[in-house]
């Protein structure tokens, strides 16, 4: 009888240790910003973690959605305000403004040039690479609804969810970053 109880306790402890250890292999990120420089930082970190064999989930919300829009995103089927927001926001990683020194769009061109000279990988290819490595992207359904962004406006393969999805992932990881 006692041995059975001991076995049970050992099993329970083993399950708890497994749960704790699994946290070490996970990174959860919130991508709130749609600024080129910040999105760049987010995807460099995501790629680094993936290269270390971690599972990475990126919850993409509000301005961050600009980074995962298809460049071909159109205004069909949207109401007046949604059309306006769609037209005023950049579509896709190549069009994002910088958080500093944007200079009405000249800044990003300057940075793209300078980064190219230093052989820094482009944001688009960092995004592609992270997805090949298994990055899980969850787009915030609420922000999408507010701005009239439809599932087909975003790059293929993203999931959709709300705050509970983010929190549940975050509680299961030992690192969470908000960018």
């Amino acid at each position: 009888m006692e041995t059975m109880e001991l076995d049970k306790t050992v099993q329970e402890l083993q399950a708890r240790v497994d749960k704790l250890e699994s946290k070490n292999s996970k990174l959860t990120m919130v991508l709130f910003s749609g600024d080129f420089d910040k999105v760049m930082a987010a995807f460099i970190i995501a790629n680094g973690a993936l290269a270390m064999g971690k599972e990475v989930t990126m919850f993409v919300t509000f301005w961050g959605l600009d980074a995962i829009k298809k460049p071909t995103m159109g205004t069909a089927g949207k109401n007046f305000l949604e059309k306006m927001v769609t037209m005023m926001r950049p579509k896709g990683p190549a069009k994002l403004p910088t958080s500093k020194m944007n200079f009405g769009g000249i800044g990003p061109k300057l940075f793209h040039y300078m980064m190219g000279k230093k052989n820094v990988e482009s944001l688009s290819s960092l995004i592609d690479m992270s997805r090949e490595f298994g990055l899980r992207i969850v787009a915030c359904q609420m922000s999408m609804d507010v701005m009239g962004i439809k599932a087909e406006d975003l790059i293929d393969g993203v999931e959709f969810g709300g705050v509970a999805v983010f929190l549940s992932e975050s509680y299961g990881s030992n690192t969470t970053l908000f960018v």
Partner: protein
Amino acid sequence: MAAQKLDFKGMSCPMPIMKTAIAVKKAASGDVFEVVCDDAGFEPDVTAWCKETGNILTNVSKSGKDITAVITKK
């Protein structure tokens, strides 16, 4: 077995680590890699990557700008 040579010269963060990870992932346990990179951040980065992934950093040497890391897959 001879070390597999990887040349990541000219690449910037995070590419050398990404490319290292891809190559090491495909290999068998005990396989040895000799990675050359001229990004100044490569030495601390490859050290941290090995520490985190459990692969063994056998040696790091410098020659001019080139940093050579010898990694044994765990």
